[in-house]
């Protein structure tokens, strides 16, 4: 749009081709100023209403418009070659592109402008033409217009070039209109060397005729859109513009992905505008986490603004992206493209603050984090080469350009806070769908309690398998200062993680990627109460792009955690990500002297991290035993690449290491170091040994010596150490294990000293990853007390602070047991070492420690003996010394133990006595015993008199039921909320360290020093609430056990009691039903059915799957789901038939629950419905055994009410329930009847 003064970019509605170049009056318009870079570059005029200035113009519209102005259209036949014309419907308009002149010169324009070196602008228009005779003839356009019987099927291409190229926006508007372009030339264009294309080319004299047929012709859409990249037209309202206009949200969950050309050229794509997209690819990306439709724009796509946005939204002006990321995005298929845009958006939020935009997005010449990450995940086959518009359109025609990717491999990366929100929302949705009309409890007590105090009364734990979520977790591993828990964090938040096999090597600086994990949400009942649900989806592209920080998961985040094993956490190393080199060198222990430690106990964390900060004294401590050996590591190292390890190489290395080709230099550095150390004159044994070491000219002489005559009385044992911290390579060096004991020999049974390792604040992560029972090496340092401390026995324990500078490595011992003959009392031979090395490379997953020590067989035995011995003596001494409480373990623990200590001096208190033991088992249930602790413990004599009130303060008293070797064990006690491990709850396998054996049957006590280690969590199926009983027993119908006899209920009294009987009967009533919550869903410990076969009735008792079958839970999965849901709220439900007379359907059912609360009416009705349903069921075959009077009396006393018509009935116990096969049964019965009538 221009007047005399200036021109402005514009768009107008109700476009008419003949208005071009005419004066118009604009009666309604929007002007959108560009928010553009400083320049006062006008803006964008949106013309809503307009008319011709000269009203006569309307009337004498010209049919034909010359494509190049200032040429009269009458000059027909000026150019004899320009005699072709094309009449048809505009199907698609390609983007304007520059055709290099060489090509122009060689093909289309050779005769016109052969010497031209100018680059030609042009664009391709494809028309659908009719092949009828009329269209082919050179009739006037008016004749054609009148005819409506054309079928436009033939595709013709017109190349608008040169002076006609400014027609691009006009032609775009004309898509769907019938036009005729005349005076064209026909040319053969070579697109590639092999491919040529016949097309019409406009010349300066070409004329465009726009037909005034009002009806627009649109290609009819195929009725069944398969969403696999078909082309089509879509009209919708722009709801949002994201990622600089590269992704537009239309209507709801329709995402339009623009090409570079489109999103830089189109100015009118503002929020609120109605646009019509032509020739766009419809793609269903099949993302697992949301259902959307992608409209993928390609070279043929054009966008027409149907109605301008009434909203005051800015229009985006984007310059064509030059960065590598932009090109990378354009090279991807549509679904991956959207995924990548989401990834970029997420990454920017996740690493806001730690990484700059440039580092994430990359620049012109460098790849950013996003691109590196994406290209590592995408298979190379998905990348599409970019073409120019010519080739693009040509290829598009030849084969559909949207070879699309199956997007299941693409896992979404989203900020942690969005992830948590999504998980909780997913669960809430499931819950809501499960209990649509559940009434909210009036007095929800759990809401009053602080969150952590609710852990024992959690109504249920919900699991979301990570593979169902389809989301990758990406972030740093950190310890949350508030909760002292390990978390996976990004800039938006953190989620608790439980990694049972967390190694020492984890690095807080690295970015970890976790793809396989499970999400556990505890306290879902509490979530279920908040049923005021948002209608919007929790995880949509919009939320990710916008990232609205959901407010409420802040308080909830501690009840959700991710569980995975360490090998599922991939450390993503990005080359441009600031690399921590100093960490790298710490991956391998430096040569020097190390102490061998064995962690005997970890004391639970006391108090909040913030409190620790204030006190400036850490109270995280680990008890360890210093083994009477030191490890000396030599400097000579060899790197062994695990992926290309060959036998030869290993041999070479072991040769090198054992024979010491370069003996002189091996320990030279070491010696210097030792010299320095010897300066500090110490009389300690250890230093003596080091001095001795110095005296040796080199260490390998010793090893040679040892090799010749190895006996146990020597100080040193040489061995091989293998460092496996680095990925893809093993470092091997020689090492010497040296005895520290006074006699300096290995055969003396020396005791290990005990030390207390205190961890400073910055080394809390080391504390987190130490494991009880594992061996570690810690660097020798002159200042630390390992060397200074006297071997003072058990009474006193030395404290030792571990700061961040201290490096601890885990160590494991591999002996030659497998390959060395038992008599071999010599150092390992070369072959054996080779064997070990090869083996260690093969079985590397078995050994997860940082350092592997290959020892001669006898030494390993000795070490084991030493470790076990010290452990054993330890255990005994400990048990005795525990009560005297001379262990000082950090201020928090001491505070917690004060009562105990006072007690020992105060004769009024009786203290539990017993041994401290470690126990491993499956946690079956945890329940809160609160103030009734003493009641609960009353049966245990030693616990009876215990007054634990002092301990209970500020703590939660629990009773933990643990299954240990098929024996149920109860552990009483209290856990402070900081010591409460992440994820602890029913379903976990845990080790309880240092719990007190209360000297009563299967009862133990948790002490403040007790430490709980979670080994694993049972991951239940998503459908865990479904009844998971084996249905095969129902399918396998007529297969009664051979020793059962088929009979009538009235004949039961004649049956021998040892035989199993088989009845074909139906359920008349359910007189008792006990339901219990268990770890998977629920259990039916007991149910009583009244069965009837026409001859009489009997009482049938059943449990588990038999009961479930008789209740018809298999037939109606919704019922069992309901039941699972109900039982999440109540621990145990008992339904009794209280009627004096059992009669279906008027059964008088009474429902009672043990949790103390009244059952909701809704739940009660559900239960009754289930029972009514069971009583209107099919015929069953029940294989059962007769119950004797004593059994019946027992059950009857416990469960039966005074129902008159039950007492006289026979009682049976159901062993098998199945469906009868009618035909087979009938055949049998017919034979039976024949036989009996013959008699």
């Amino acid at each position, binding site marked *: 749009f221009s007047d005399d003064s200036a021109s402005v970019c514009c768009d107008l509605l109700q476009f008419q081709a003949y208005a071009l170049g005419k004066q118009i009056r604009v009666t309604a318009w929007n002007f959108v100023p560009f928010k553009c870079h400083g320049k006062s570059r006008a803006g964008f005029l949106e013309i809503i209403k307009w008319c011709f200035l000269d009203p006569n113009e309307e009337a004498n519209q010209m049919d034909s418009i010359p494509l190049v102005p200032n040429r009269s259209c009458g000059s027909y036949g000026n150019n004899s070659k320009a005699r072709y014309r094309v009449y048809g419907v505009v199907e698609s308009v390609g983007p304007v592109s520059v055709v290099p002149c060489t090509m122009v010169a060689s093909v289309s324009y050779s005769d016109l402008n052969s010497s031209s070196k100018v680059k030609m602008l042009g664009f391709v228009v494809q028309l659908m033409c009719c092949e009828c005779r009329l269209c082919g003839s050179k009739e006037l356009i008016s004749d054609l217009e009148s005819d409506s019987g054309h079928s436009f099927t033939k595709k013709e291409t017109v190349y608008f070039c040169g002076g006609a190229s400014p027609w691009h926006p006009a032609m775009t508007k004309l898509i769907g209109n019938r036009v005729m372009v005349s005076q064209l030339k026909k040319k053969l264009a070579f697109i590639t060397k092999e491919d040529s294309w016949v097309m019409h080319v406009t010349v300066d004299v070409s004329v465009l005729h726009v037909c005034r047929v009002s009806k627009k012709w649109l290609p009819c859409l195929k009725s069944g859109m398969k969403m696999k990249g078909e082309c089509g037209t879509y009209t919708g309202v722009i709801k949002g513009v994201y990622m600089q206009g590269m992704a537009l949200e239309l209507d709801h969950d329709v995402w339009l992905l623009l090409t570079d050309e489109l999103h830089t050229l189109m100015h009118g794509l503002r929020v609120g505008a109605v646009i019509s997209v032509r020739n766009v690819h419809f793609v269903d990306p099949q993302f697992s986490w949301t259902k959307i439709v992608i409209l993928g724009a390609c070279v043929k796509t054009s966008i027409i603004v149907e109605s301008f946005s009434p909203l005051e939204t800015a229009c985006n002006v984007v310059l064509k992206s030059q960065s590598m990321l932009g090109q990378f995005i354009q090279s991807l298929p549509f679904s991956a493209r959207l995924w990548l845009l989401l990834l970029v958006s997420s990454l920017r939020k996740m690493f806001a603050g730690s990484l700059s935009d440039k580092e994430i997005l990359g620049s012109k010449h460098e790849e950013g984090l996003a691109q590196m990450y994406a290209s590592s995940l995408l298979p190379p086959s998905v990348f599409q080469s970019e073409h120019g518009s010519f080739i693009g359109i040509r290829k598009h025609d030849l084969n559909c350009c949207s070879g699309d990717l199956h997007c299941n491999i693409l896992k979404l990366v989203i900020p942690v806070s969005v992830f948590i929100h999504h998980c909780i929302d997913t669960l809430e949705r499931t819950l809501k769908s499960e209990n649509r009309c559940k009434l909210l409890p009036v007095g929800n007590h759990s809401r009053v309690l602080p969150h952590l105090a609710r852990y024992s009364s959690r109504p249920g734990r919900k699991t979301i398998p990570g593979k169902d979520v389809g989301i990758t977790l990406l972030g740093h591993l950190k310890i949350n200062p508030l909760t002292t828990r390990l978390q996976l964090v990004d800039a938006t938040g953190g989620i608790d993680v439980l990694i049972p096999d967390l190694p020492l090597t984890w690095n807080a600086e690295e970015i970890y990627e976790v793809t396989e994990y499970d999400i556990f949400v505890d306290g879902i009942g509490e979530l279920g109460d908040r049923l005021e649900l948002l209608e919007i989806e929790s995880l949509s592209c919009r939320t990710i792009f916008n990232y609205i920080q959901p407010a409420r998961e802040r308080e909830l985040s501690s009840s959700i955690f991710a569980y995975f094993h360490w090998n599922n956490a991939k450390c993503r190393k990005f080359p441009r990500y600031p690399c921590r080199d100093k960490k790298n060198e710490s991956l391998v222990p430096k040569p020097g002297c190390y102490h061998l430690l064995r962690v005997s106990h970890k004391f639970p964390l006391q108090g909040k991290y913030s409190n620790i900060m204030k006190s400036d004294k850490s109270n995280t401590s680990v008890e360890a035993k210093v083994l009477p050996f030191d490890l000396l590591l030599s400097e000579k190292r060899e790197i062994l690449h695990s992926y290309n390890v060959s036998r030869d190489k290993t041999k070479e290395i072991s040769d090198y290491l054992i024979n010491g080709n370069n003996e002189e230099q091996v320990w030279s550095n070491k010696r210097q170091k030792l010299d320095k150390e010897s300066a500090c004159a110490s009389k300690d044994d250890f230093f003596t040994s080091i001095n001795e070491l110095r005296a040796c000219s080199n260490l390998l002489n010793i090893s040679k010596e040892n090799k010749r005559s190895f006996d146990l009385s020597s100080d040193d044992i040489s061995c091989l150490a293998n460092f496996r911290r680095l990925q893809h390579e093993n470092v091997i060096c020689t090492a010497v294990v040296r005895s520290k004991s006074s006699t300096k020999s290995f055969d003396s049974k020396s005791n290990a000293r005990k030390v207390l390792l205190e961890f400073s604040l910055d080394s809390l992560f080391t504390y987190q990853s130490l494991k009880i029972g594992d061996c570690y090496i810690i660097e020798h340092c002159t200042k630390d007390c390992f060397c200074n401390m006297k071997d003072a026995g058990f009474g006193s324990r030395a404290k030792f602070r571990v700061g961040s500078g201290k490096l601890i490595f885990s160590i494991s011992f591999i002996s030659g047991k497998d390959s060395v003959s038992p008599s071999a009392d010599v150092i390992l031979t070369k072959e054996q070492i080779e064997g070990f090395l090869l083996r260690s490379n093969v079985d590397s997953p078995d050994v997860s420690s940082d350092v592997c020590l290959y020892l001669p067989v006898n030494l390993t035995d000795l070490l084991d003996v030493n470790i076990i011995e010290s452990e054993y003596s330890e255990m005994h001494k400990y048990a005795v010394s525990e009560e005297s409480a001379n262990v000082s373990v950090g201020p928090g623990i001491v505070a917690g133990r004060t009562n105990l200590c006072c007690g020992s001096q105060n004769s009024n208190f009786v203290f539990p006595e017993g041994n401290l033991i470690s126990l491993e088992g499956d946690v079956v249930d945890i329940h809160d015993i609160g103030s009734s602790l003493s009641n609960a413990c009353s049966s245990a004599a030693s616990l009876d008199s215990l007054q634990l009130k002092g301990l209970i303060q500020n703590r939660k008293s629990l009773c933990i039921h643990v299954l240990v070797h098929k024996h149920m064990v109860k552990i009483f006690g209290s856990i402070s909320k900081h010591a409460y491990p992440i994820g602890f709850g029913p379903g976990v396998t845990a080790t309880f360290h240092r719990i007190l054996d209360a000297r009563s049957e299967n009862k133990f006590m948790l002490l403040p020093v007790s430490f709980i280690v979670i080994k694993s969590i049972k991951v239940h199926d998503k459908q865990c609430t479904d009844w998971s009983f084996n249905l095969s027993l129902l399918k396998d119908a007529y297969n009664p056990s051979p020793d059962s006899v088929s009979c009538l209920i009235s004949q039961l009294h004649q049956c021998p009691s040892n035989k199993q009987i088989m009845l074909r009967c*139906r359920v008349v009533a359910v007189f008792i039903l006990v339901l219990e919550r268990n770890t998977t869903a629920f259990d039916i410990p007991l149910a009583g059915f009244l069965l*009837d076969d026409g001859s009489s009735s009997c009482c049938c008792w059943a449990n588990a799957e038999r009961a479930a079958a008789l209740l018809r839970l298999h037939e109606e999965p919704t019922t069992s789901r309901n039941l699972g849901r109900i039982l999440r709220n109540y621990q145990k439900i008992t339904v009794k038939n209280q009627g004096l007379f059992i*009669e279906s359907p008027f059964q008088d059912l009474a429902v009672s629950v043990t949790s103390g609360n009244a059952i909701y009416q809704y739940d009660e009705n559900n239960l009754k419905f289930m029972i009514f349903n069971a009583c209107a069921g099919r015929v069953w075959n029940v294989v059962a055994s007769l119950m004797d009077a004593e059994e019946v009396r027992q059950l009857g006393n416990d469960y039966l009410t005074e129902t008159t018509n039950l007492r006289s009935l026979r009682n049976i116990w159901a062993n098998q329930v199945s469906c009868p096969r009618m035909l087979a049964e009938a055949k049998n019965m017919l034979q039976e009847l024949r036989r009996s009538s013959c008699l």
Partner: protein
Amino acid sequence: MQNPVYNSYVKLLAFDLLSLTQTPSSSSSSVSEPTFSRRGIPLSRAETLGTVTLRDHKPHKFLRFLIDDGTASVPCILWLNHMTSPYLARRRRPDDLRLIADSSARFAAEVRVGVVARVRGRIGCYNGKVQLTVSDVVVERDPNAEILHWLDCINLARNCYNVLPGLGPGPDPGLPPSSTRKENLAE
């Protein structure tokens, strides 16, 4: 009630069921419901299986239908008035009534002419004829269920009902025309 059969759902062929002896209740009970007996053995409930041949539906009142088992047709009544009956409203909780009404409505929906239904109910009498007051309905999809039911009836009559110490002679269950049945079985 020592009679084991009295409270169970006896399986009788239709002709047998319809020819039960009715004795006007002689006991002192206020409700003058007749008692039914077969060969002197009192019965209260029965189960029958057959094709639904007639359906008379009065919404929210009752559904009357006929079950034809090949020997005769048993008239059945399924009450649908649980929510409106003042008698029940006095005796049952509304929630329970709602559940019963719902299940009755489901049964009523399943009873369609032509289906083979297994019906249990109380033996009652209407216009002097035996009628089943339905407690539950199960539609059988296996065609062999009907044959098995016949055989069950014969088996029970031989091994149970006829051997019980009765009070007098009743109709002999005999073997009703069974040639067709055996043909079916032979398939």
